[in-house]
């Protein structure tokens, strides 16, 4: 499969989060667990705790020296925040 990670929005804050290998939700993509085995990815997605996040899904990434970066521009915007104002992740030091 295309390397992928699991992303969602946090329940309380609504901000973008990524699932780590330890089962926690991180605020930055760099901390995310990257899946290359579809069965494993689907299993992890299925076991996401719905009390913590909203709308979890698999998001394809490209890998440079093992570090993931978004394939689609929508996902690139989600790592930063809006382009018209310096708000969101770009302003929060992520």
């Amino acid at each position, binding site marked *: 499969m295309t390397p992928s990670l699991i992303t969602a*929005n946090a*329940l*309380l*804050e*609504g*901000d*973008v989060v990524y699932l780590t290998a330890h089962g926690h939700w991180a605020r930055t993509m760099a901390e995310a667990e990257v899946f290359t085995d579809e069965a494993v990815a689907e299993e992890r997605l299925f076991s996401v705790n*719905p*009390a913590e996040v*909203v*709308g979890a899904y698999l998001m394809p990434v490209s890998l440079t020296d093992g570090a993931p970066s978004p*394939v*689609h*521009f*929508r996902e690139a*915007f*989600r790592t930063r*925040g*809006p*382009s*018209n*104002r310096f*708000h*969101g*992740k770009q302003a929060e030091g992520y």
Partner: protein
Amino acid sequence: MYHYSDFDRAFLATRNAQFRAQVARRISGELTEEEFKPLRLMNGVYLQLHAYMLRVAIPYGTLGSAQMRALADLAETYDKGYGHFTTRQNIQYNWPKLGDIPDMLDDLARVGLHAIQTSGNTIRNVTADHFAGAAADELADPRPIAELIRQWSTDHPEFQFLPRKFKVAVTGSPEDRAVTAAHDIGLRIVARDGALGYQVLVGGGLGRTPMIGKIIKDFLPEADLLPYLEAVVSVWNSLGRRDNKYKARIKITVHEHGLEEIARRVEERFALIRPTFSGIDQALLADIRAQFAPPAFRAAPLAPYEVAYAADPIFRAWADTNLARHKRADHAIVTVSLKAHGETPGDASATQMRLLADLAARFGYDALRISHEQNVILPHVARADLPALHAALKAQGLATANIGLLSDIIACPGMDYCALATARSIPVAQELAQHFDALKLEHDIGPLKLKISGCINACGHHHVGHIGILGLDRAGVESYQITLGGDHGTDLALGSRTGPGFSYEEIVPAIERILRCYLALRESRAESFLEAFRRLGLAPFKAALYEPDAKAKELVHAAE
């Protein structure tokens, strides 16, 4: 304006307490997202790209200064110091936290505002002419019936789970500033034999399948308004396509069954339910009307305005673009532009909102309006006060003289905020405004409606822009389609697509080619872009867009 009764306040308090409990149950895990989502949507809460979003209704676009101050307080207390006025006379907060939203709703309730039915498959916030109660050409103020419809539709038990959303717009002027023909129901106040009534349009809408509303009733007597609306929504509620969300809106129902058949069913339903309306609605309407009595206008001399107009070119430029004719000669309708070049269309900071509230209290009989074109209106200002008003606006970056010009752009939030968007629209609007400002072409180009949507749902009304831009995702790249010749006015018209789209980097130069073509081919400065387009058709603009080096030059030279 309308002031809440004890009944209204009690209703809202109960509703807000219910939603507070629903939010608590979602946070504790008692409710799943699947269970919670329809509940939060009915209360205006979306989950967007980067955060939750709260959409607050500004019914028929009318606000007083206390309400505007409350909106500013909300922006500062719970958000990042600003709000975004939308194309449906709502305000959106882009960064609330889920746990804070019940407090926000309680704060809003204190000033008679709410977020009920600003989303979901319900009858949405009723919109109206933003010059209502002030326009020189008005037959009657449309806001009393808009308020009646708000009360009738809020929590209407039959209409909480409609096939899709349902939008109603009303106008009381022959010049349609409320885009009524692009709504599920459009109501136009008309006169016949000395009595006022309503022309009813049905099945209009933009979005994926744009359609212009059709007249289902040429003259509806005043007292029949609510039973007739109820009959229309009821017929659609039974027939509407719940199997396919893209075919669920009433425009498709009307298209599939035909206007005649829908009208027949509506009349049948109307005959059945009309007797159940005992007249209480009309008594209520009379009470509402009394609350919309015009303010006690003060007679004011014209001289201070005339002196400033003659002496100050900056004031003159602003007066020429941002003022509209009031029903009284010694007053004017002021449109405050939220489109300063390079800023986000429709955004206002808490400071700006407070200034607008202060100015409304000081100069404007405490009246404010929000237009679907994402500007703020002071509907009643004595002309004598305009120089002082202009000076105060200028100090807060609110005196941009661009109403009706290129940079007075409607733009949806697009992919900078919206989870449904397929491309960005705000930065395209920002760049277009800055680009043409730098070229100093905006005033030369003259009247122009440029409208941008970041997806096919068309919140940015691109179909009815003289120039419309639709942002799409084409194989993982933002691509912008152009339509030309749309018209949002009384004779609503949908624009024609020029051809293949342009990339993010190409879209501003593409719009420049269209406008340079217009400047070269217009008969005179008096011929607007839309008029020139209607005379010339799509061909020369298409050539300028797609064969800029060949055919366009030829055409331009021929015209010269």
